[in-house]
């Protein structure tokens, strides 16, 4: 009798373990990236409309996962430039993962026109900022060291003091290749 109960518990545990390890494996293989090309929406009246489109094209040239422009209702990512009042950030990106796999299902990029204005960003700095945020959408994380030229440095000092280009560096492209082989 006791053996029967123990056997049942064992098989139940086996099933649970198989399910959980499969989920983890799935998350490792597919998480932190997009399963297909990324449809985005940016309003034609947005102050950074041209810049958003141009930088999406820049990433498309070096990444196998592509951005393409779509309508508000059919897009999975939105790009917005707006006056959010004074903040300590210039740009904000969030990509929401599917709760089981971690694969991104939606996202948004916001650029604060107020902070961009009060910090007198020039065209090169604004380009670096927008390229950086779109890099997050693709799954790239912030860089916190100056070890490699990168468009993903956490603030504008990468561009300002270290002379990093506002275009994706080879280091960024290599990172993308590991996400989207």
């Amino acid at each position, binding site marked *: 009798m006791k053996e029967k109960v*123990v056997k049942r518990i*064992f098989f139940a545990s086996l099933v649970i373990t198989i399910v959980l390890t499969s989920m983890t494996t799935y998350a490792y293989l597919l998480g932190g990236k997009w399963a297909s090309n990324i449809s985005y929406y940016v309003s034609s009246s947005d102050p950074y409309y041209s810049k958003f489109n141009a930088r999406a094209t820049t990433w498309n040239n070096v990444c196998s996962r592509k951005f393409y422009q779509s309508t508000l209702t059919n897009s999975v990512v939105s790009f917005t430039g*707006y006056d959010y009042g004074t903040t*300590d950030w*210039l740009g904000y990106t*969030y990509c929401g993962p599917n709760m089981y796999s971690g694969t991104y299902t939606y996202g948004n990029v916001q650029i604060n026109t107020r902070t961009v204005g009060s910090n007198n960003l020039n065209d090169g700095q604004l380009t670096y900022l927008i390229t950086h945020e779109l890099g*997050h959408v693709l799954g790239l994380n912030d860089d916190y060291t100056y070890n490699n030229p990168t468009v993903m440095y956490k603030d504008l000092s990468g561009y300002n003091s270290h002379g990093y280009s506002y275009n994706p560096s080879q280091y960024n492209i290599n990172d993308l290749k590991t996400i989207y082989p």
Partner: protein
Amino acid sequence: MKNKTNIYIAMTLILIVVSIASVSLFYTKSNIHKSGSSAVWAHQYDDVKTLIENSDLIISGKVVESVPELRYDMVFTKQYISVDSCKKGSVAKGEIIEVSQTGGEIGTKKTEPFDVAPLFKNGEEYMLFLHKAPEGYYLEMGGYQGTGKISNGKISYKFEEDKINKQLKGRNIKEIDELVSKSK
């Protein structure tokens, strides 16, 4: 018979350990994906002296109220802090100041706070290096660099790899007082 039962018990225990490891790995990985919530910061600081010099207000205090507010398509949270002691600036003990944080929830509208700058929790104590926005509220210096959580007199920082957080980590309130006095 008893041997067989023991084998099943041992194997079940192993499976439980594997499941727990799997779940914790899954959640760690999920958090990494969530780190899509990121920023380019307007200002960051490399040393504590500069952080202090550029702060309008340095205080320790407790969060007494958190109020979310919608600004277009983003939610921000107004954090009301009751000041316990003021190290720089002129705010009296017991005075309430407003700190604006990115992130929060209003109804179905939600903005994820930055992973490195989580929302303050009501009733918790913080050591804050702040600068004043033209709108009247305060902002954390360096986005997250100027925020430490106080527990048992010690200050801990969320993002310990950061240069400033590394320098301030583990210091008590008296030590912060000394650092501020030195930089004056």
